[in-house]
């Protein structure tokens, strides 16, 4: 098949900005004016989707969109206006720590009585919550570690070597079947979700688009390499205890072996990654470029800020007994009588 005909389908738009970007990508209409971006809600569905569409061209693109669109100068101009709106809102709204030591210390304390999404899911999450959680998170996990690979050419020495080592682990240590994005697809199969890349983009709320857009923003701008490193540190430091709770949730609900394995693997992997990122990546970067410390802090705190917004969205909806998605998931398929055998077998292969 012609390369540009493959890839995810363009999702339905969520307002005038995303509608204009979509029709421009289809070749059927003009781009939004930069002034439209400046007036939009920086965290809203419309701006976040418009920005997500621009960024996705740097990952896998969309079916029917020619690959040259990635470097279309006019589209890049619109992307810059969207980034400007999003980025300046983040700078204004993110509560930042006074120093890197304080930002890291705050992440390294484990709350006795946690109230986050993983606490909710481990204590009382039902299978339908876990399916929604995985569908939302699939926007990142199906390209897990990809945006962070963009920082490699912008690092030197110790920071670069350590970052590459952690990425190597994220990409499966040279084995495709151990790639974390692949392990997440296996988890999705256990939860009867569609593993096709981009499948749940339309279902995902603006809060999740913002989380992924943040990584793309940091990853694509060399200027923001410090923020990318801070962002990565936040993810790695908070992942291990959160993954333990999510693994418990998967076990308690009988989600399946691959669903448990994805989070079990992250308990021990990220206990290592957080050490390497703090000591080697951050330590190495500060040796080379000590002036980047405030950017690292911003990367940590902006990530916390957007993750909290996402957590609130999920818990508010679930607390009201409602779906947290924009479009609810189809009920899981009832497996045919002989299907479970082969199904299970396939999923077990990578855990052995």
């Amino acid at each position, binding site marked *: 098949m012609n390369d540009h005909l493959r890839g995810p389908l363009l999702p339905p738009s969520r307002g005038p900005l995303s509608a204009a970007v979509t029709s421009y990508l289809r070749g059927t209409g003009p781009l939004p004016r930069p002034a439209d971006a400046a007036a939009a809600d920086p965290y809203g569905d419309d701006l976040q989707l418009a920005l997500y569409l621009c960024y996705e061209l740097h990952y896998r693109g969309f079916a029917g969109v020619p690959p040259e669109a990635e470097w279309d100068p006019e589209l890049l101009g619109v992307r810059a206006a969207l980034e400007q709106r999003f980025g300046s809102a983040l700078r204004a709204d993110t509560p930042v720590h006074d120093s890197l030591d304080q930002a890291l210390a705050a992440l390294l304390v484990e709350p006795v009585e946690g109230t986050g999404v993983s606490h909710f899911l481990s204590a009382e999450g039902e299978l339908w919550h876990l399916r929604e959680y995985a569908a939302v998170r699939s926007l990142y996990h199906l390209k897990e570690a990809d945006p962070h690979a963009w920082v490699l050419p912008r690092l030197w020495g110790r920071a670069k070597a350590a970052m590459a080592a952690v990425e190597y682990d994220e990409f499966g*240590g040279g084995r495709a079947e151990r790639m974390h994005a692949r392990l997440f697809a296996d988890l999705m199969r256990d939860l009867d979700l569609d593993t096709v890349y981009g499948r749940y983009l339309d279902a995902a709320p603006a809060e999740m688009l913002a989380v992924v857009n943040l990584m793309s923003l940091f990853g694509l701008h060399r200027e923001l390499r410090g923020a990318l490193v801070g962002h990565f540190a936040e993810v790695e430091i908070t992942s291990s205890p959160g993954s333990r709770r999510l693994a418990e949730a998967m076990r308690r609900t009988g989600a399946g072996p691959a669903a448990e394995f994805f989070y079990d693997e992250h308990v021990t992997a990220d206990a290592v990654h957080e050490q390497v990122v703090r000591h080697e990546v951050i330590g190495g970067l500060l040796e080379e470029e000590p002036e980047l410390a405030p950017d690292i802090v911003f990367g940590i705190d902006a990530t916390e800020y957007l993750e909290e917004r996402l957590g609130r969205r999920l818990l508010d909806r679930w607390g009201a007994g409602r779906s947290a998605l924009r479009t609810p998931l189809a009920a899981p398929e009832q497996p045919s009588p002989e299907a479970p055998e082969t199904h299970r077998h396939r999923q077990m292969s990578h855990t052995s």
Partner: protein
Amino acid sequence: MPNDPCDAAADDSAGPAQDAAGRARRISMQRRGPLLVEGPVEIELEDGSTVRSDRFRVALCTCRRSRRYPWCDTSHRRKA
């Protein structure tokens, strides 16, 4: 992985505490938190059983609170 220097390090001919280049195996210690050891490793536990990991680096629990002992699971962290 073939041709991976880590595999050569695991090979007995290179000696258990050296990598292929003859460099000593590096272990990082900290007062609070795990020992960081260059992988792959094989750990013999008190009961004689062994566990192994081929991760590029492993974090070995020193606080004894880990639920994935001997691997660190961040249970050493301060609670508040």
